[in-house]
């Protein structure tokens, strides 16, 4: 029995990846992730120079909403509300970071970039490859990116251009909606090696005492354990149609959540907010929980269960339906004038 997972031509120690964010912006974190037996790490997203302002962050910029801090991180429902945009260093710092990660850790490293014009996407992707990254994730859907979260036509050129310019696998991280499948198909048609589903939503919250928006005063990225339910729907829908692998992300707190994503067709799962609330040890715990499940179900490789739940999924036409309102129980007696 092994957690070893084949993904994008790499053999990962575990299907559990560290998602791009505050847990992947320096070399020490990559080493910690490796010690914790994570499968790979997606580095914090670097923005092109045009978006240099996104490298400076507001203070404060993190808030756990509906979070009960008295129970030591055991809460199963909360929301992570944040506005930490890109990697805080320059692009040169980012290239150094990737090189340093490869030098000091054996963990597969996935670079993550954001830009607007195809030329910038391609130039950055080439550098990410040169620095030794094992793959690259195109973060076209960050809740923090400027403008609307619509899938823009420039992204097609970006995906297409990057795929043609680098030899390393290209993941495309897609937003959570409203329709994700068409975006998956576009990514696949343009040569993406895999899709990451889904980025966080863009949300907003207000403090009723000060009567002002909380934190920096603008919309923020919002996700949390509740996010897994809509992501599971998107993963299932995509897995039924596309042929490229899926890296699922959103709301994973336990091994159970990882297994659910796998049963719906995901190859790997990315985690982050669980590390915030339960610490880095969560990675090992989740790995152990997956192993316990594999033992109990007598599974040797996760490949055996990947997409297994999809075969039991039905179309709306096939849903078995029964009548409800036409029953003749006591609550319907008044209809027949038999009161009293």
């Amino acid at each position, binding site marked *: 029995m092994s957690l070893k997972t084949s993904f994008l031509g790499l053999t990962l120690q575990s299907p559990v990846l560290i998602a791009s964010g505050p847990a992947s912006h*320096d070399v020490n974190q990559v080493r910690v992730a490796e010690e914790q037996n994570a499968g790979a790490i997606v580095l914090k997203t670097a923005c092109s120079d045009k978006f240099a302002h996104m490298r*400076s*962050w507001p203070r404060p910029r993190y*808030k756990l909403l509906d979070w009960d801090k008295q129970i030591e991180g055991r809460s199963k429902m909360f929301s992570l509300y944040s506005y930490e945009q890109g*990697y*805080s260093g320059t692009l040169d*710092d980012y290239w150094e970071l990737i090189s340093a990660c490869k030098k000091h850790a054996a963990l597969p490293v996935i670079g993550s970039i954001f830009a607007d014009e195809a030329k910038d996407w391609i130039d950055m992707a080439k550098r990410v490859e040169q620095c030794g990254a094992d793959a690259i994730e195109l973060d076209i859907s960050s809740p923090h990116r400027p403008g609307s979260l619509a899938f823009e036509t420039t992204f097609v050129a970006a995906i297409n251009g990057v795929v043609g310019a680098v030899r390393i696998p290209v993941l495309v991280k897609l937003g959570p909606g409203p329709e994700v499948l068409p975006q998956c198909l576009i990514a696949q048609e343009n040569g993406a090696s895999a899709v990451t589903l889904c980025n966080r939503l863009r949300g907003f919250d207000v*403090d009723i005492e000060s009567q002002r928006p909380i934190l*920096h005063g603008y919309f923020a990225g919002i996700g949390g354990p509740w996010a897994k339910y809509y992501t599971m729907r998107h993963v299932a829908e995509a897995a039924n149609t596309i042929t490229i692998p899926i890296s699922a992300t959103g709301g994973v707190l336990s091994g159970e959540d990882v297994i659910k994503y796998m049963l719906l067709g995901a190859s790997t799962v990315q985690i982050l907010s669980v590390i*915030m609330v339960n610490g880095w040890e969560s990675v090992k715990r989740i790995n152990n929980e997956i192993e316990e499940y594999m033992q109990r179900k007598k599974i040797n490789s996760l490949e055996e269960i990947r997409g297994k739940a999809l075969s039991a999924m039905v179309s709306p036409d096939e849903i078995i339906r029964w009548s409800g309102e036409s029953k003749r129980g006591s609550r319907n007696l008044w209809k027949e004038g038999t009161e009293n």
Partner: protein
Amino acid sequence: MSSEGSKYPGLRPLPPDFVRDFPPLALVVEDKCIACDRCPPLCFFDAIVMEARPRHKFKRTAIVIPDNCTGCGLCFEACPVDAFVWEPDKDIGKGPSKAAEKTERDLGV
């Protein structure tokens, strides 16, 4: 403006002008700290460590390393006794540190 009963107690000591005029930095009120060890692992910038305080009720306290603190506010979420407050960051003129360089140094390579 009352700070009682707010849903976001961690943000209460931070008036709006503070954000505009002084970048905030987290600070531990050592007398309040109960040495529960929850905040150091939550900090993604290695800005919080536990330090011995022989005279402290719990013999130890969390402290913030100002050079590492980016004022993100996550530690306010970790603290069960609201021992964190904001103070002005006098160091901000230096600009953001180069993460890769810093970690190379930290690793001693």
